């Protein structure tokens, strides 16, 4: 571009100012995580004396050993991982089943289906009606309640449908002429071509399930089926009350401070490991349907 080629001194200064602003913004995002990591790796004495900033002092892995040695955390971790995998698979299947038939303009009743879907985006019955439904379906305290009620997001379905619309009709028509069934066309034409959107929605569903805790809070009493985030919520609140107690002069719970940090770290890591690799896909997913030309 011409503008980039004739670069004056003032645009260089401008570039630097914007770059510095971006560095500051990035630091604001990173510092809480760095601080967390430092605390989880620090020695009790340094934490009690409030000497830990961004680098661990008295480096040790005791907190992580405790977390990994305690079957309570490990079990919740494995259970949440399992839950996330299963519900992501089911959700992706349901989303595909819903999105694919709706791209056929010849489908009779298509507008009725679309209306059924659209209404749910604008009006929801609310927390208590949903709760009473779970109760009547005998889903309360049933681990399935963490999978089935959230197995289809209409927003995600719309993202997938928009992606399907973008696949040329000619591919489908060629398959139809070859006598392929609609199951077959979905399986052999649409799904192989839709890897970017499937990756995006898998990320959205998996993150939603991994991070979600309100359904377990409302529908689950059995602690064995608590997802990690709900367990973490309970732990943080107990430990937080200890922290209030400390201010009033009780003994300081040193290990619990680094332990707390280690548990938070432990429940964050899976997502932080995954999302950067899917970035180029989800950016497309977010913008589908939201940007009007």
């Amino acid at each position: 571009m011409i503008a980039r080629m004739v670069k004056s001194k003032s645009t260089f200064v401008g570039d630097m100012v914007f770059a510095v602003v971006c560095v500051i913004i990035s630091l604001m995002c990173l510092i809480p995580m760095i601080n967390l990591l430092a605390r989880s790796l620090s020695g009790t004495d340094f934490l009690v004396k409030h000497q830990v900033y961004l680098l661990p002092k008295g480096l040790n892995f005791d907190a992580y050993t405790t977390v990994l040695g305690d079957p309570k955390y490990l079990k919740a971790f494995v259970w949440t991982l399992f839950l996330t995998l299963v519900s992501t698979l089911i959700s992706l299947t349901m989303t595909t089943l819903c999105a694919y038939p709706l791209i056929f303009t010849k489908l009779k009743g298509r507008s009725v289906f679309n209306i059924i879907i659209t209404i749910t985006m604008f009006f929801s019955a609310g927390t208590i009606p949903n709760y009473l439904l779970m109760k009547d379906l005998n889903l309360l305290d049933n681990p399935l309640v963490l999978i089935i009620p959230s197995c289809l997001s209409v927003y995600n379905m719309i993202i997938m449908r928009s992606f399907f619309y973008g696949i040329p009709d000619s591919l489908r028509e060629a398959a139809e002429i070859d006598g392929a069934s609609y199951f077959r066309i979905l399986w052999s034409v649409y799904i192989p071509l839709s890897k970017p959107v499937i990756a995006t929605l898998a990320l959205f569903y998996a993150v939603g399930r991994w991070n979600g805790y309100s359904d377990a809070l409302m529908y689950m009493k059995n602690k064995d089926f608590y997802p990690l985030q709900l367990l973490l919520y309970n732990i943080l609140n107990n430990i937080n009350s200890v922290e209030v107690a400390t201010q009033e002069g009780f003994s300081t719970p040193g290990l619990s401070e680094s332990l707390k940090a280690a548990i938070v770290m432990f429940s964050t890591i899976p997502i932080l490991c995954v999302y950067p690799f899917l970035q180029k896909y989800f950016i497309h997913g977010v913008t589908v349907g939201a940007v009007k030309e």
Partner: protein
Amino acid sequence: MSAIAKEQELVSSAPKERVKWVAYLKRYWQLYVLLFLPMLYLLVFKYVPMKYVLIAFKKYSIVQSIGEMPWADNHGMQYFIQAFQNKDFVNALRNTIVLNLLDLVIGFPIPIIFALILNELAFKRFKKVVQTIAYMPHFLSWVIIYGLAIQLFTPTSGLVNMFITKLGGQAIPFLNDPGKWVGTYIFLGIWQSFGWNSIIYLAAMAGISPELYEAASVDGAGRFSKMWHITLPGIRGTIVVLLVMALGNIIGSGFDRPFALQNNLVMQNAEVISTFVYKNGIKGLQFSLTTAVGLFQSIVGVVFLLFANWLARKLGERGIW
């Protein structure tokens, strides 16, 4: 006579219609099979609950079916009246609106500004790294963010307060003082979402024709006048769509964020409708009252959305439909 003719025509065409249908279904039945489970899901989990909304107008009883429950007093409106006489609900309603308005006024422009800055970054690699970092908070759960907030903001051992006291200041109770809590809540909301929300604006900016910028450069426009006169107008449609949706959500309240961040010391400012419903409904078993509250919230939400969209169209924008 024409009526008879028509009738005859109908009679004779009926089998033909049926043949057409059979042929149609023979061809397309698979699509209906595929749609069966999603539609069943929507009917059971999105439409059946609407039946339970009737509880808002009835005296809830655990042993009776909805049909059998007696209507509430005051022509069924008893629980709506009761809600507005309930000090806690009125407070939760006020908090919901105040927190959402603050989110809107402070939080809405920030992703736009961030996207403008990113769009101006000359170093592509660096831009990518900044984006990856800025998207990160969106992937953290509110429980984890609460955990981070404790580490940053508690008066004695929080990182921020450690700095403040080291510099000779007084520790600030960011999480335990009702007024300061509101600031923390808004800040954490922005922190979590500004990067993610900037994606849409960046995509809209990528759609602006480069020729416009080139023409402006030829006319001697500087960087800021290009941002002001080309980039911002270029994403105006996107801004309006998102603004309409935000306005439609002004009385809505997610559950995860307020519930994770609130604590007993700040409840006067932190209780919102969703947490009120959870505590008084699922915990407190006042099903009729909380269903009424939920219904009120849903209806006001739809009205706000329609109004915002109407306003956008009135102002010459396209709105969301």
